[in-house]
């Protein structure tokens, strides 16, 4: 099993979360903690870079759902980028593309944030 990890870095006006490994029911609370922390600190322009995300379960997706309202209320957003095809498939199957910006690159996410601000 690959080790789960979240690394945070800031890039221009957004915070980038890189997620490593498998985001499942077991690891979902860690992403929750991270998102909560960002919201508390008023960092609401969030880019989730999934280039190293190997697996996502619906509990993992649920974390995004649980905080998206708070984030959008504060005029921010979660934009998801660089998903592997297998992982994108799960997002797609459950209908996430209609609710979230799922993009190919961080640059696209940045420019979306810029154009919306």
């Amino acid at each position, binding site marked *: 099993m690959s080790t789960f990890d979240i690394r945070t870095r800031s890039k221009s006006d957004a915070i980038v979360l890189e997620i490593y490994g498998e985001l499942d029911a077991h690891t979902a609370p860690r992403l929750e903690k991270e998102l909560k922390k960002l919201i508390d600190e008023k960092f609401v322009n969030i880019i989730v870079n999934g280039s190293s995300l190997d697996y996502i379960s*619906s509990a993992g997706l649920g974390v995004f759902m*649980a905080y998206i309202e708070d984030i959008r209320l504060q005029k921010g957003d979660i934009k998801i980028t660089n998903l592997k095809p297998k992982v994108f498939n799960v997002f797609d199957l459950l209908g996430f593309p209609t*609710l979230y910006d799922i993009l190919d690159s961080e640059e696209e996410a940045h420019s979306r944030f810029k154009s919306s601000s």
Partner: protein
Amino acid sequence: MTLSKEIHSNQKYRFELETLLDTSRLLIESHDVDFILNNLLLISMGKLLINRAAVLWYNPRDRNHIVKTKKGRHTLPDSVSVPKEPFREKNSLFCRDHSSLSFLADHGIELLVTIKNNERHLGFLALGSKIGNQPVSSQEVRILESLVFMSGVAIANSELVEELRSTNRKLDYKVQELFTLFDLSKAFNASVDREEIKRIFKFTLLGQLFIRRFFLIIRRNDHPITVTRNGLDKPLTEPQMEELLSMDESIVRVDDELLRQYPYLGEHQIHLILKLHNEGGEPAIIGLGRRANGLDFEQTDFNFLISVGNLALMSIQKTYLLEDQIEKERMEEELHIARSIQQKLLPDKTPEIPNLQIAAINIPSYQIGGDYYDLIRDDHGNLTMAIADVTGKGVPASLLMANLQSILHILQPFDIGMVEATGQINALIYQNTPIDKFISFFWGRFDHEKRTLRYVNAGHNPPVLLRKDHDPILLSEGGVLLGAMPTMTPYEEAEIPLETGDLLSLYTDGITEAMNDGNEEFGESRLMECLKNNLDKDPHAILEAVISEVRSFSGEPFADDFTLIVCKVT
């Protein structure tokens, strides 16, 4: 045929072939019905120089044709009824030639070509007239028929591909659901933290089906409780929960009728109620709001939701069971400590008293009991002996017993008479106990010089004094049980002279009320008999004899506390 005409005809033929080839290439690669139809229209119009065309798409439900794709100016309505009979023999017909089709001609449609696949009618390619009203040649009709034929095959293919794609997607979704359940059971198994289980449950409902509002109700210790809820402004009341738990159906979509019956479901925006299969048989339900993406719940979602609910329910019950177990162990541990404290309140060894041999035992039952005895030697070598039985068992009884013990020990050094002392003890116990708690109490003072016993019996089983060749003497002078009423009339005391060889036995009802398998009590007469038979032995041997007799009568362990004091005057 002239050469130039032949060359022209050849060129035209080649051009037609190329058109067909191009079209077939395009159609093979395309799996998009709209694209195929659009392409068919454009090619037909371009090839034949026709300025209006449409696809009439067959709708098997109303047997009419929907005007699906149209190009150029015409006045066709959205749906038309085209008779199929004229097309039994032919694939294409000119509308003017058939009265049943002439209404199409009025809308500017000259020619219909059937689009079909394997005899399944799909629709028509409807074409207007050529620019300049040139007639459509039979060769052109043939080309059109070929184009339409290829399009028909391509449409059938693309429908198949679409069906395959949708089946695949459904399958993918199922697999994803299974992964979710697998993931959940793994996570739930690994956790005994109820908060974590509730969080994972919430994330799963959110992530899989976009459900923000929900509650989970179970019954625990005979009361419904909302184990977890999300998105509800206020909790459900107990009667509301009872009502929901008692619903008969496993799957309930909240409709207008239900909303009238349970208006709070509307306030909470609950849309669906599912019954869970609880192993303990107790009902449990989940209530769910609408999906945040606006989609409706489907039959397959119910199965998934019930599975997720059951998994969560099982794990949550597991955490409760664990807590109960821990609580039980904690209570047992406390009882164990209470019992050992209680044992310490009893004398750890019998004192040495001139002219008196003493043996005493207390065997506690499994529970904490309320038996008490004491043997206190004063500075003159005299003995105060006491025996008592508190009503009931458990911690309340042991507290009361401890209370009595301390009163007795505090009063002991003071030189007050037994009558007054007993009155004071009663007053204190009466103050300290609820109305339904009493203590049967006997105490006596043995004066080793005078060889007398002075005693007060407050409602205790009368101790027995056995003397050789003499009837048993029962020590019953005294008064009512301690704690039953305030001390109004003084207790009475009695003094009896003792002789060498006299055997004094004090006991609690744990001995006389010991039961055998036939629900028969050991009783006073058996005890008396046993004491008489062992009268010549020393107190320890007598004690052992009584214990073994009761044990063989009722078996072990003793249901009640067993206390016995045996004293022999020497």
